[in-house]
């Protein structure tokens, strides 16, 4: 071999490829070509250095964190699917309200159901975040499905059922949804502002809530206050728990727990979007927006932005 072997040939040689003749050719070249031999030696040396790295131990706490995240994700799936099934049942039984159809109305695959219910049970056992989530699920299914929500209320905890009449307000913004647009609306619209600052008013009673440090202000500025203006009650299949869990998963841990304040419907980069605006129990005054495809919080947010 008078030609230097190219990188692919050397890679194949080092990988042990080639028949005896091909390997002999490369070996003969290396024997007579110090520069190529040096390349192969240095690459081989790097391989040896890599052997110094062994598999690291799992950091303390990561196992529990993964278990909790998996439980929350399974619960999110359950919360996502449960209301629509109840809603369907409710509609059959009571000929309930129309106009709540959505993509998630499709039949739930049979194999999902036990998972979903098992996860719902896990959610009941889970601590801080989970309780308000299921409470909100109750609120939504009640608001959407007429009588259908009662079953979820029983699952979630009977004593929240009475409080479970509301849902998150929805703000409709003309044009692009941006943090700046929301800030502008906050500056000019007291109802939107009170929805953000009085986030506690759309949540279950404080006795239920796992976020006692959340300022309970604006008790009068209920979701109704906002709902009487442009915003209308949330009826789409993008449920509060699903969106909140997805946002929480994507959030900087320093912001957690997040409290949902209101939804925004509008366009994000030309795409129909459902945007959840949250406040942070850990950082009072902080607000963030989380962009999801319209009525779909099943995956991580498309984008996030700090509102203030």
């Amino acid at each position, binding site marked *: 071999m008078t030609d230097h072997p190219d990188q692919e040939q050397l890679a194949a040689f080092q990988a042990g490829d080639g028949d005896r003749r091909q390997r002999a050719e490369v070996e003969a070249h290396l024997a007579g070509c110090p520069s190529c031999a040096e390349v192969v030696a240095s690459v081989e040396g790097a391989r040896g250095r890599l052997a110094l790295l062994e598999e690291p131990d799992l950091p303390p706490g990561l196992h529990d964190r993964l278990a909790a995240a998996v439980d929350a994700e399974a619960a999110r799936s359950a919360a996502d699917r449960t209301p629509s099934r109840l809603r369907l049942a409710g509609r059959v039984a009571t000929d309930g309200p129309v106009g709540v159809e959505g993509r998630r109305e499709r039949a739930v695959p049979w*194999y999902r159901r036990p998972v979903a219910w098992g996860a719902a049970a896990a959610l009941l056992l889970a601590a801080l975040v989970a309780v308000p989530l299921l409470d909100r699920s109750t609120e939504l299914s009640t608001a959407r499905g007429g009588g259908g929500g009662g079953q979820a209320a029983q699952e979630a905890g009977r004593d929240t059922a009475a409080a479970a009449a509301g849902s998150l307000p929805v703000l409709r913004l003309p044009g692009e949804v941006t943090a700046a647009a929301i800030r502008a609306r906050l500056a000019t619209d007291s109802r939107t502002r009170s929805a953000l600052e009085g986030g506690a008013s759309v949540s279950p009673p404080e006795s239920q809530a796992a976020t006692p440090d959340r300022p309970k202000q604006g008790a009068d500025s209920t979701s109704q206050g906002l709902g009487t203006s442009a915003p209308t009650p949330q009826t789409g299949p993008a449920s509060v728990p699903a969106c909140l869990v997805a946002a929480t998963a994507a959030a900087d841990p320093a912001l957690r727990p997040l409290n949902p304040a209101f939804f925004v419907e509008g366009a994000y980069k030309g795409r129909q979007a459902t945007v959840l605006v949250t406040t942070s129990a850990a950082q009072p005054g902080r607000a963030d927006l989380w962009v999801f495809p319209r009525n779909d919080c099943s995956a991580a947010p498309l984008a996030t932005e700090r509102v203030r």
Partner: protein
Amino acid sequence: MSDPSDEALLAAHLRGDPRAFGTLVARHERRIYGLCLRVLGNREDAEDATQEAFLAALRKAATFRRAAAFSTWLYRIAVNAATDQARRRGRARLATLDPEDAGVVADPGSDLGEAVTVAVAVQTALTKVPEEFRVAVVLCDLYRLPYADAAQILEVPVGTVKSRVFRGRAALATCLATSDDPDPPLGVATPPGTDPGPATSEPTGPDHPRKE
């Protein structure tokens, strides 16, 4: 059935067994975390990517097909999670590995402190290797996966994996050789007479004519 296969556990999960997926997580978490740590070079990002990988696996569980092994499928998801995490974070936080996380094999009789230092240097150099090559090196040289398995994980031909591993090692050698330099270039030792690939910014191979 004392020790069900990964595939059996996933099937049980899909049938509704509430503990099956947790068992899969427990079984693979250390490997997936290690993979993410080697690719990302710092613990915080590696933990986030590990979580994202398992959540993605949970979401995609119903799409698993037995054409591939579960571990191959999971590694592919983990590689994607790690590279997504790297993109989210940019390069700013690469190579901030705590020595404690480096993980070392100390030669018997060698000084452990020195072994840790070397391991950290190797990990630091690894994070400077172009990502495409780094992932291939991690899979093949650290995880000792056969080239064919790595090719399935990366969804590229086997020859491409071999080439990436070779280039990754060469880049690592260059980074280690210049590790005294506080910001070593990403030069890749390129054998003479070959065109440097797109990511091999500065061929440092010996300079001599292609034909003698």
